[in-house]
């Protein structure tokens, strides 16, 4: 089994400070070096990777964003990226060049509400208009564009409107995500309860069946099997964080709330020191260990309801949710933290 997609966290700098953001702020701010990206792109060819994707922070803040898009395309990869949209107009000319456009699979634009009030409540005043202007530019240039809403307390009742917005705007589709808990989004009351996540999944499945545009829900969904497999656990997706580490996925490293001084077992190897193929070997071992641990607990009857909530079960396994103990009243604490023995 080899990887198909390779994702880079290009920078941990950002021009916004969204209330729901999972990216930690305890780490120093920096950009992933261009030379390292090129080296990893070269090494990834041996693994049969075909799609390269970029995230952040805000990926468009990487000082060599244009150069690395060219480096990606020159090596024959297709590419996609996720953005808050504010700086998209800067790169429209590049993305419109035929050699680049032909390799562009998708621009995913984060949108957290069907109107300014709902979206800006999370992303800050004026953001909705900027995102809409960016989408108009992408549409005018014929770029494949999708919306990427993260479902929170404020937009929970607006899923259909967001899907219709994507359809009216002539976009290729939209991909909802569950919003993962952080101390801030729990404190702000933005976080939904586990039962509401299940309702979101039902609502999204219904929209997907009824609308002509593609409607999806990203990783983190409830899986009836306790032995879930996402694209990262299946090693279809590889993820390189802003420090140049091959990591299990984008949901775990330097996540908000996790103690920055604790070891990070989801970080596999630093690609400035280790070749991607060798790092992949270590990733196989780490994932095997993860599955072994799960299977042993399954056999011992120790798997709880939490184990069906994909990313949350991982986050607990990798020690990222210790902070939930400060929120004893949250329904997630009951699910994630070990139950207290009755006196």
């Amino acid at each position, binding site marked *: 089994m080899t990887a198909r997609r390779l994702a880079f966290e290009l920078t941990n700098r950002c021009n916004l400070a969204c209330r729901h953001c999972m990216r930690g702020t305890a780490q120093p701010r920096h950009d992933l070096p261009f030379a390292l990206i090129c080296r990893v792109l070269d090494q990834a060819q041996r693994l049969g990777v075909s799609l390269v994707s970029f995230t952040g922070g805000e990926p468009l803040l990487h000082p060599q964003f244009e150069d690395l898009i060219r480096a990606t395309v020159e090596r024959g990869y297709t590419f996609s990226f996720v953005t808050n949209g504010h700086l998209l*107009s800067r790169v*429209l*000319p590049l993305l*419109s060049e035929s050699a680049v456009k032909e390799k562009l699979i998708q621009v995913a634009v984060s949108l957290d509400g069907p109107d300014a009030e709902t979206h800006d409540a999370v992303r800050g005043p004026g953001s909705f*208009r900027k995102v*809409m*202007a*960016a*989408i*108009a*530019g992408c*549409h*005018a*240039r014929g770029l494949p564009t999708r919306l990427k809403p993260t479902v929170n307390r404020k937009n929970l009742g607006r899923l259909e409107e967001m899907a219709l*917005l994507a359809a*009216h*705007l*002539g976009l290729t589709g939209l991909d909802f995500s569950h919003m993962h808990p952080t101390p801030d989004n729990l404190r702000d009351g933005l976080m939904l309860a586990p039962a509401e996540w299940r309702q979101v999944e039902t609502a999204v499945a219904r929209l997907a069946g009824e609308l002509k545009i593609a409607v999806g829900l990203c990783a983190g969904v409830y899986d009836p099997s306790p032995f879930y497999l996402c694209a990262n656990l299946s090693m279809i997706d590889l993820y390189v964080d802003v420090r140049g580490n091959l990591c299990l996925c984008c949901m775990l490293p330097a996540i908000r709330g996790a103690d920055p001084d604790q070891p990070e077992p989801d970080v596999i190897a630093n690609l400035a020191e280790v070749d991607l193929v060798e790092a992949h070997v270590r990733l196989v071992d780490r994932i095997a260990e993860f599955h072994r641990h799960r299977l042993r607990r399954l056999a011992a009857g120790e798997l709880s309801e939490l184990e069906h909530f994909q990313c949350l079960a991982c986050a607990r396994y990798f020690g990222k949710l210790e902070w939930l103990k400060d929120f004893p009243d949250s329904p997630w604490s009951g699910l994630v933290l070990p139950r207290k023995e009755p006196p």
Partner: protein
Amino acid sequence: MDQKIKAQEAVVFTDLDDGSAVLLHLDNKFYYSLNESGSFMWQLIEKNDGAMSKEKLVEALCEQFDVSPDQAQSDVSEFIEDLTREGLISVKSDS
């Protein structure tokens, strides 16, 4: 009687690198393409925030592009008529 032109709040403008532009009406989610002179006029209307008149637009168009005053007059009239019909601008009589 002077006419003052105002860009509607619910419209966003996006500049494209070839000088053209696109408008998106946030109420009905329709896109509108603007050519170079349309983009130029829209930006003037937006910048002057309700204070732009038809006469000033004609003047600015003649200065910026190689057009006769008659041609500019008719281009501006047509532009204002089209954009008003689509609810992209409002025109107020300022007596």
